[in-house]
């Protein structure tokens, strides 16, 4: 535990002395602020038009629509941001030769891996807190449903856990950050696009493709429904990524 904490702290410090943290945080906050604003104005405009046409029409759930679209777009923005959080975690250690220090110190591979994984996860939570400030303005001017908001953030967090584990694994495979970021991004994109392939498929193939889609499992969370099957999907995904990372780190000893 103490070792994991030491690794975690070093990793957090190194995020914030390199420009990566600031760039990722700034771009993410700018994009989520921008999308929040444009979604909000679009929804407000359409409700105003609706009320002009017929006073007897159904009341529109503005906060609900806004939060759903907001979480949807955030998941897309994260697709680009997450590879940048994980790209250097092991690739940089390998390039600088500090992997030799970590592997010859009395720390276990598991401690090193968890320290780094938790650091990237902490950073993701910081990003969510930042975007949460923008989002909380909905609570000032309206009454969004707590469940939807919590469900959305929980979904995004699980989605983040899964993708960070994948990125962590890919980072162990190379000493080059650029290679790491590109492969991670490509892999996530494939997992994301599976959904569009599934529309053309039928039967079991469709079920399998639907299940694999990393984004499909997010829909229910965004609607405020917490379905254990989706939780299990993301948790399994994350554990799988961590398991592969562990194995890959172990094999470094044999290959080096």
């Amino acid at each position, binding site marked *: 535990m103490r070792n994991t904490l*030491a690794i975690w*702290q*070093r990793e957090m*410090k190194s995020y914030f002395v*390199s420009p990566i943290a600031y760039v990722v945080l700034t771009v993410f906050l700018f994009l989520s602020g921008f999308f929040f604003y444009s979604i909000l104005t679009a929804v407000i405009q359409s409700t105003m038009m609706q009320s002009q046409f017929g006073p007897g029409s159904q009341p529109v759930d503005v906060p609900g629509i806004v939060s759903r679209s907001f979480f949807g777009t955030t998941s897309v923005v994260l697709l680009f941001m997450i590879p940048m959080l994980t790209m250097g975690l092991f690739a940089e250690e390998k390039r*600088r030769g500090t992997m030799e*220090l970590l592997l010859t*110190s009395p720390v276990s591979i598991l401690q090193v891996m968890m320290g780094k994984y938790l650091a990237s996860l902490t950073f993701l939570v910081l990003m969510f807190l930042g975007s949460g400030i923008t989002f909380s303005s909905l609570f000032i001017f309206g009454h969004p449903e707590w469940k939807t908001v919590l469900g959305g953030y929980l979904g995004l967090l699980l989605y983040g856990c899964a993708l960070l584990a994948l990125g962590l694994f890919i980072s162990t495979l190379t000493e080059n950050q650029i290679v790491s970021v590109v492969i991670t991004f490509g892999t996530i994109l494939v997992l994301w696009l599976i959904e569009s392939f599934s529309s053309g498929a039928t039967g079991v193939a469709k079920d399998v493709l639907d299940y694999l889609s990393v984004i499909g499992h997010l829909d229910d969370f965004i609607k405020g429904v917490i379905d254990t099957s989706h939780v299990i999907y993301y948790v399994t995904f994350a554990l799988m990524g961590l398991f592969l990372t562990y194995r890959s780190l172990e094999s470094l*000893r044999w290959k080096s």
Partner: protein
Amino acid sequence: MIEVEHLTKVYNGRKAVEDISFRVEKGEILGFLGPNGAGKTTTMRILTCYMPATEGTARVAGYDVFEESLEVRKRIGYLPENPPLYHEMTVYSYLDFVARIKGTPPSKRKSHIDDVMQRTNIGDVRGRVIGRLSKGYKQRVGVAQALLNNPEVLVLDEPTIGLDPKQIFEVRSLIKHLAGDHTVILSTHILPEVSMTCNRVVIINNGKVVAMDTPEGLANQMKGAERVALLVDGPAEAVREKLLAVEGVLDVKAEGIDGSPSKVTVECRLNTDLRRTLAAAVVNQGWGLLELRGISVSLEDVFINLITKEE
């Protein structure tokens, strides 16, 4: 303290290290000498649990490097060939991190780091970012890192590389001071370094141990015969004949032009000291004895000899 038995490491079908065995006693400094690519780094990496051996065993402080890797890693300080530094960190925060993962208790950490910084003479850059330091400082931060948590065994891969002469001297005397409390293995391809700092030398070439002894022992081993050089004020041919007649002399080479002193090299049987007899023989003939000295074999000769013999 360190026992290495029949160690072999195969890399992509090539044997980087082949059947190496040696022992290092507690408090000793062992020098690992060999040309680049001889297998020094590979052996050190196996000892520090960075990679496993293909065959053979290695034990550090009684623990097997493969089976009880964690126990070994707790007792070892390692300076790899390229010092493992986080360039964005300051010297102090880097050492603090290393002390933490090596398990130095929080209450002792600060004084311990200060002590190590003082011993490696890097106290003046404690707040500087490592990436901006000169090569010499970086190397010494690497040495400092290896000393943290007072390891019983120190494995230093070319510790003086990149340092200026004064710093080399400081690091060497630091290493010498470490002996006794610590057991040290250091690799180098600088020959004087070995004779200056080490109790024993292992020379490896192409992954095999070609010699193992004390620096003096190695030099003696290589001699084969005692040699004496003389400068005699007399005709070369006559001097040669006279000296050949001396009991115990195996061969005499003499060269000199008439009128100038002759340069003479005498080869004598091993373990005999004929300097007095030779001097008497020269003087009795009425020639002037201008110079007389025993020729010793340097480690350099041994090294070159061993390495070239192998190839």
